[in-house]
């Protein structure tokens, strides 16, 4: 395989030819608290170093000192825009190790919850992508429309951002009366938003001229970098955990992941637009096909002192940013021995960004960064 890394170049910082600047950790263009160390020649980036660690909260270590049920309210906080994936994976890992089967309806409600979260995260991502190129209007639309989804979450789970709804054993309780109808209204609104985004973003000379050809990820980089999700699909690699390793009830749904070809920022954004529409279709499928009644939860005996037999497992799910994974080791006590969280953007957001940034103008670096779906909270668990 051709080496991806070139030899490290030496830059003479005293020559007066270069300037080194820091962007972040507090910077409106950076997605969350991380920092970019940039070496510029004129407007062109010659060298970039990512610095993470500003948002480290030690979730993995915290979990080793908490009983299983006490980990449940923590895990969602690993990712702000899409916390439900964490809730699901933590629950799935504990259930697998403890040998707990959850009721059928709970599986469907979980999938519904995950798709709602993906939709919210994806449309906010579209807004962020346009915002990073100075197209702030779409960012405002996207955030406002995500709020309609948050209203649905609030109604369903009692919380807007951190839902804490998918609990080991199932979900906390059933859908509220008439929830489906109200959710459908929001879906219609989001469909209209996407048709507006088509006109204003994808048919926009500014966006096209800046995003096309920016940050091209060749197909043969996908595997060595461990890139997943829409970032990989934008480069023509069709990998989707929901399709390739179905979990919950995804094998009972009809869908095909969308794949791009060009591998640039524009292609990735287009894939995400399709992803949002796919999530809407999946939500409708789930609501139509799910069992209408039935239990939604298996009660866990002695939940305050829940002991899980010794074992280890890796569970994964497709989040809005790619494959999200939880590796859990248990030792038969009331506490997890080790929980490792594989954040979806962990593989994209540091080394790949450093590589892709070479030759990019300073103005485009944020557009590039957003297109890799960099999410510092999940890089630093």
């Amino acid at each position, binding site marked *: 395989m051709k080496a991806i890394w070139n030899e490290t170049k030496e830059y003479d910082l005293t020559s007066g030819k270069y300037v080194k600047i820091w962007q972040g950790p507090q910077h409106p263009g950076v997605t969350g608290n991380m920092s970019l160390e940039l070496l510029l020649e004129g407007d062109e980036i010659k060298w970039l170093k990512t610095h993470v660690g500003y948002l480290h909260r030690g979730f993995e270590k915290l979990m080793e000192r*908490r009983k299983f*049920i*006490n*980990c*449940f*309210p*923590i895990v969602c*906080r690993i990712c702000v825009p899409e916390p439900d994936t964490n809730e699901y994976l933590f629950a799935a890992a504990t259930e697998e190790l403890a040998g707990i089967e959850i009721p059928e309806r709970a599986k469907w409600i979980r999938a519904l919850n995950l798709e709602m979260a993906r939709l919210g995260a994806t449309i906010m991502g579209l807004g962020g992508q346009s915002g990073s190129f100075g*197209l702030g*209007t*779409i960012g405002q*639309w996207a955030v*406002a429309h995500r709020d*309609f989804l948050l*209203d649905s979450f*609030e*109604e369903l789970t*009692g*919380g807007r951002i*951190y839902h*804490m709804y998918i609990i080991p054993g199932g979900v*906390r*309780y*059933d859908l*509220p009366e008439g929830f489906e109808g109200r959710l459908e209204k929001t879906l219609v609104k989001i469909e209209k938003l996407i048709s*507006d985004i088509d*006109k*204003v*973003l994808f*048919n*926009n*000379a*500014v966006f*096209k*001229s800046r995003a096309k050809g920016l940050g091209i990820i060749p197909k043969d980089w996908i595997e060595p970098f461990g890139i997943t999700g829409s970032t990989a699909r934008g480069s023509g690699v069709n990998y989707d955990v929901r399709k390739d390793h179905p979990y919950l009830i995804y094998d009972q749904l009809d869908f095909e992941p969308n794949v791009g070809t060009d591998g640039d920022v524009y292609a990735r954004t287009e894939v995400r637009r399709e992803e949002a529409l796919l999530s809407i279709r999946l939500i409708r499928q789930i609501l139509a096909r799910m069992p209408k009644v039935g*239990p*939604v*939860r298996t*009660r*866990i*005996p*002695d*939940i*305050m*002192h829940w002991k899980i037999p010794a074992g280890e497992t890796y569970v994964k799910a497709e989040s809005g940013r790619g494959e999200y994974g939880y590796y859990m080791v248990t030792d038969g006590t009331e506490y997890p021995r080790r929980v490792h969280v594989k954040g979806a953007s962990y593989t994209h957001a540091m080394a790949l960004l450093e590589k892709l940034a070479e030759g990019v103008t300073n103005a485009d670096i944020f557009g590039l960064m957003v297109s890799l779906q960099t999410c510092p909270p999940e890089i630093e668990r």
Partner: protein
Amino acid sequence: MSLKDVISPFNAWKRAFEKPDTIVKPMSDREGAPNYRGFHINDIEKCIGCGSCEEICQNAAIDLVEVASCQAKPGDSGLRPLIDYGRCCWCALCVDICPTGSLGMSNDYTWISEDPEDYRFVPGVDDKKWNGADKGYRRQEEAWLVEPEREHMPEKTPEDRKNDFDEYAMGFSDEQAEAEAGRCLECGICIQACPTHMDVPKYISEIKNKDLDEGLRIMFETNPMLEACGRICTAKCEDVCAVGHSGKPIAIRSLKRYIGDKTYRKKDEIMDLEPVEQTGKKVGIIGGGPAGLTAAFYLRRLGHSVTIYEQHDKLGGMLKWGIPDYRLPADVLQREIDFILRQNVEVKYNTKIGKDISFEQLHKDNDAVFIGVGAQIGSDMPITGMDTEGVYSGVEFLEKVAKGERPYVGKEAVIVGGGNTAMDATRSSIRLGAEVKVVYRRSEKEMPANREEIREAKEEGAELMILTTPSKIEKLPSGRLKIECLKMELGEPDSSGRRRPVPKEGSEFYIEADVCIMAVGQKVEPEFSETIGLKVTKWGTFEVHSDTLKSDEKVYAGGDCQTGPDDAIRAVAAGKKAAYFIDKQFKG
């Protein structure tokens, strides 16, 4: 790129003409969803301060604190949760675990105070605008984190068990015991309600840990009669069990029995009691019932010599003579007593104070005397015909049954009373072949017997005649008894809080029976009280200091002879307490 790409973005302006979705006045309140997880509310009357919320809170945001408006009482710690909103993460696990359902969350989420201290408050006690809110997150039935149903102990069917005196409850299997133990929140609200304050959560957690040996050692710290109590205790702990507020209480008594059943064969090995230094002090114990045996055990562990003076030829007191075998098999009681005796307890059987040995002698020979003689004499009713042949007292009848005699009950028996002795007499009579009517002057709700005793007696075919009292008994020429009864109605509550029964005029009716067993209360043997010359109350019980059980400088009394007829666990508690204070007296 085309001209279209330049013009198309102007489509954004269309949105300027649409009705905005945002709230016009951003500062006006937007109501949270009906199950929004906002600031906590707490129904302070319903809350029992069990602390389960504090236990499950992963942020340590909840602290149980004393509040002026709540007093500690059995089943209520008197504490209430104080929540620190600097730590709370609004996960509502505290609401989902709450066994009473008192804790909830309002849908209020907009509130600002400049004082950081304001963000620590006791919901329901401190005045907040959302107190009493009807919207917000509440624990839904299916969301409760605790299993509401208890494990059912296997037992013989009523048809099967009513023919013999064999034990009918079979005890929990390992799986059942672990499942039942798993329902326990380990809140400890039961400890205070138990007269001898057994550390229930700790021994239940040892069942979860599969360390029954440790469970046994924990139980022995407060109760050496655990096998008997595991079968016949009135389980005041279960009455106050936090889980019982929304489901069935934990089967604490059955779990106690489970540990006893699994460990009795290796009791000496498990307990591994090391010899203690002997103090040379001597204690005489009158009465070898639960109070006396318990006092003997703990006094021996403290190094004092103990002699029990027992008027029967066997120890056990009311556990032996008052409780039929089907509830407490004689061999179970005997093996428990044997363990206590193996701690070098001396026993003088068939020794009656005042007859075989004088109380003065006893007083002189010992450094302290503990009286635990119980209330052995059945009370009479002030009605004519009490001395008719065929009318027995409940305790007398049960003693005969315990001795293996099979007293005559005929085909039909009438039992008068509503306590546990009445139920024991009822069920024993059924086992001896009689059809039984239970005559009780109040309603079933007011019957002092354990609920399950009443239920099981009914299952075995006993007929309850509530709001009825006998007023006259006479012998018919046929040899049967004719019992005149009166119908009663309930009036105002009396000093015990139960409604006083008042006879209905002209409501006399008659029932016939072969025997009539009076189980209407017990009292301390008056001759014994006279013999020892201790001060007695108007109910004939010994008057001692309520905390130390001390009468004069050397004499202590506890159990039924001090409290009036009560249950075994209270006697055990009295024995333990007396041992403690006797030891304290010796040590000065």
